[in-house]
């Protein structure tokens, strides 16, 4: 007989929607279990631009989306100030722009009305010389520029923070746990839970629940299909290129050959450029960046920053948006609004709900809507409090200099640790405060300390080495894991009780997953980078399973 876990709400999907709903329900005192088949945020959330921007782009067609995004962006800044960074934008004006600066400025003036909700500054106007002084790499052909103000966020970490908060309030967060089928009270009757497989241990178990919330993002139709329910998305693939360190100081607008707006922007320790938006009907578990997409993004960037091809592209990030279905419209013109489907009212699967569509910036609001509905269904009437209560680590600012001195860690490490864990960095580091040796650096690019890896394994339920790029940004810097894969596998091996063979396999899989993201964009200096990567990892860890 397999293990049975009993809960009130089963949430399928550990992206920003699933984790956001888990947190909202937990605060209301409603017991829930969250199942994520890979790592928290590993689907669309990780592949997003990592911005909680208002969506200037949506102002024309979806002013609702812009309003929601701006209001909710302000809320996220309040509850997770440590995960947020300001991204000032620069929008260069070219003579051959299809929309002239006068009309553009009318749009920006309209946007200015929404901006205070997200603590942004109103737009500004720069002369050509001012713009080139701020961003010397800008094309000399610009005529001037506008500035506006947006916010970036570590999306994977935001998912983890929501999940951790929920867990601290009694929710069970299970990663690498995949729904195999739904339970029904009678055939074709109410959905009463799911049978689940743990993809790490291979264990099959059952989760029984009063209702099921399908928050599986682009996988949502597949999940609903398991209950015999069909609904359509217009899945839109988007890729980003990740550059080593900074390309520009500000985010810079670029225009694609088809007129689409894109940007190159600072993101955490690196810079990103993107994104694309193309219909995608391929395998959601094997999304690969293509040569066309890379060429399209680089070409767009080149118009604003002519030297873009001299920058080292480290890797690509690719994902699929769960965009609401629309027929006939171009991908970009599809609504970024969201929907909650009651499969009891709209179909034949009472007890199953699906949330889909939406934007990262408005995740909290979507979760509130979904949790309101769940609470109503369950006869609960606790109100939503996710906009007031801070996320873990967001309750107080962290004194970086003092943390660095007290815990014997370098300033960059303290800074990045404070970014990921906020005030929680203090208790995390306290674990090794009186050890004879100071925390050891495992990944020098980010940097990541062994103390942090131990913490996420012990306290955050991290299960695999391949989860580390998302959870702590290990292995996504210049070396792509060459310097840290073996060392990080050893730390996790100790914490999680892995046999050495398992640790070697985990390191191998990290290398393989990095290769998946790097190979499609291999060019220039990164080709030499991966030459070293292979020499190091082939030298340090064997790769032949047959021998081991």
């Amino acid at each position, binding site marked *: 007989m397999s293990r049975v876990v009993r809960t009130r709400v089963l949430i399928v999907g550990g992206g920003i929607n699933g984790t956001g709903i888990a947190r909202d329900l937990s605060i209301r005192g409603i017991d829930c279990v969250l199942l994520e088949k890979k790592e928290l945020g590993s689907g669309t959330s990780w592949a997003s631009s990592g911005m909680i921007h208002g969506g200037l782009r949506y102002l024309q067609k979806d002013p609702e989306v812009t309003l929601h995004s701006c209001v909710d962006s302000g809320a996220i800044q309040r509850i997770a100030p440590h995960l947020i960074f300001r991204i000032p934008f620069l929008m260069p004006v070219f003579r051959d722009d299809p929309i002239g600066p006068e009309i553009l400025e009318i749009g920006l003036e309209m946007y200015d009305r929404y901006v205070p909700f997200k603590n942004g500054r109103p737009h500004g106007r720069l002369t050509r010389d001012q713009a080139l002084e701020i961003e010397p790499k800008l094309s000399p052909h610009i005529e001037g520029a506008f500035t506006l103000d947006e916010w970036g966020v570590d999306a994977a970490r935001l998912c983890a923070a929501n999940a951790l908060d929920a867990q601290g309030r009694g929710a069970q967060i299970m990663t690498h746990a995949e729904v195999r089928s739904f339970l029904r009270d009678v055939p074709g009757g109410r959905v009463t839970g799911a049978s689940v497989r743990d993809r790490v241990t291979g264990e099959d178990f059952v989760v029984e629940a009063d209702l099921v919330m399908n928050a599986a993002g682009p996988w949502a139709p597949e999940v609903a299909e398991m209950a015999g329910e069909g609904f359509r998305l217009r899945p839109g693939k988007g890729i980003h290129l990740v550059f080593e360190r900074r390309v520009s100081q500000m985010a810079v607008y670029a225009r694609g050959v088809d007129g689409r707006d894109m940007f190159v922007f600072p993101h955490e320790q690196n810079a990103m450029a993107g994104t694309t938006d193309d219909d995608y009907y391929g395998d959601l578990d094997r999304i690969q960046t293509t040569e066309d997409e890379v060429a399209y993004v680089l070409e767009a960037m080149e118009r604003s920053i002519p030297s873009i*091809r001299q920058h080292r592209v480290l890797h690509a990030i690719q994902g699929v948006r769960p965009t609401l279905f629309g027929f006939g419209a171009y991908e970009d013109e599809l609504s970024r609004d969201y929907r909650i489907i009651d499969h009891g009212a709209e179909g034949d699967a009472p007890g199953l709900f699906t949330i889909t569509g939406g934007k990262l910036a408005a995740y909290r609001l979507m979760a509130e809507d979904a949790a309101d509905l769940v609470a109503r269904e369950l006869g609960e009437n606790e109100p939503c409090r996710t906009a007031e209560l801070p996320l873990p680590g967001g309750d107080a600012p962290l004194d970086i200099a003092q943390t660095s001195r007290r815990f014997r860690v370098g300033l960059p490490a303290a800074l990045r640790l404070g970014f990921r864990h906020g005030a929680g960095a203090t208790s995390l580091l306290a674990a090794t405060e009186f050890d004879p040796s100071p925390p050891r650096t495992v990944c020098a690019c980010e940097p990541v300390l062994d103390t942090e890896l131990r913490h996420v394994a012990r306290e955050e339920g991290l299960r695999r080495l391949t989860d580390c790029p998302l959870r702590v940004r290990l292995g996504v810097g210049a070396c792509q894991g060459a*310097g840290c894969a073996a060392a990080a596998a050893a730390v996790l091996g100790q914490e999680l009780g892995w046999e050495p063979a398992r640790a070697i396999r985990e390191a191998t899989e990290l290398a393989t997953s990095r290769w998946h993201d790097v190979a499609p964009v*291999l060019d220039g200096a990164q080709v030499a980078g991966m*030459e070293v990567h292979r020499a*190091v990892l082939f030298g340090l860890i*064997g790769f032949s399973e047959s*021998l081991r």
Partner: protein
Amino acid sequence: MSVAVIGAGLAGRAAALLLRASGLDVTLIDAGPGATALGGGCVDTAAASPGVSWLPWRDPLQGRPLLPRERVQLVVAEQPTHPYTVAFGSDGDAACQAIERSIDALRSWLSPSGLAVEGSLDDARVLANLPGTVRVADYVLTGPSSGDLRGREEVVWVDVPGLEAWDPSYAARTLAYDLEALGLPAPKVRVLRGVWPERLAEPRVARLAPRLDRADVQTTLCEALAGQGSPERLLLVPPMLGVDHVGACLSRLGEATGGAVAEVLGHAPHATSGFRLQRALEQACSGVTVRRDRVSGLRERADGFELQFGEEPALDCGAVVLATGRYVGGGVDAAGVVREPLLGLPLYDADGRRVDGVPAHRSTRKGYANAQPLYSAGVRVDPAMRPLTARGEPWHGRLVAAGDLIGGFDPARERTGMGVALVTAARAVETVQAEMGHTG
């Protein structure tokens, strides 16, 4: 007329030293260190790490691990594009002899720096890698070379608090596991804690190693480890026992501890072995004319070649040895499309397919550990090491190539890169001597 050697890594310096020894006038063009300086302490000629290469680990009939000599035999028998095969055909004995001659030469070049090359083709050493995995090595440099694990009763990892990538407790477990998985007798493995001197607590190998070149710092370490060794016990330390004086540091430690001490094998940035080799080679080349510059163009002349250096004065020479390496060295450029930047020579992977003229990513395959055409790509040469045009003819009678620039093999997977550098350099020099009417 002088001979120009372009590239100052292992292949280029070997070629320069051999040319000078034969009495030819040599100019070595040094545009900075390449892959040689990033090496991990092994002088790989034939013995792949277990599990890495396409070569079997054990003899399928007898079940014993294959000797380096047998691996070379397998390479020339089964891999037609490998530079060993190109140079020696299927004559594995000739390839082995050439490797041994080259290693002897290398020994003579490195010995003034106190760096020894230990090992042979008839007995692979079993060494520990930094994470505790096992590596099988034919030739090894001073530092890790004393770390043979065979026949040890006890292996002790010395803890260095706070050092990046140094995790002795899990490494000790991994070592025990790996030895068992390979069917090798496993010694007792443990970790020695609390003895490392506080004065030497540095987070980075790159900062620790230069300090250990100093005698007073060596003394501190000797005092800390005094009496910790025994003849049956091997003490393993991180790859940081100095940059220029590793030999001296090791022998002092041996005396102080009363046993064997060795570095584990590691890679940059967690090891200094590659820098040691590079510096010892530079010292060996102190009598060679070195021009520190990057060649921007190479033109054929009636009586030889003209090397161009941007705005700087050009250099005329009678023959050229191209030892420019691959991607790290800059011998193959991959910005936009993959190409050989000096002459536009065609580039081929291990399956004989051309990879130049197309973007790098098109020569990749799924799966990190699979054979990647991009990383076996390089120029194709004739048995005299003359790069070939697309029509299969030598580009020029007195233009030869050596080292990683030559394609058809994957140094990371096959671990024959150092051997190829040395053997192809020797063969290339023979060609130049013959063409210049010189016999060394």
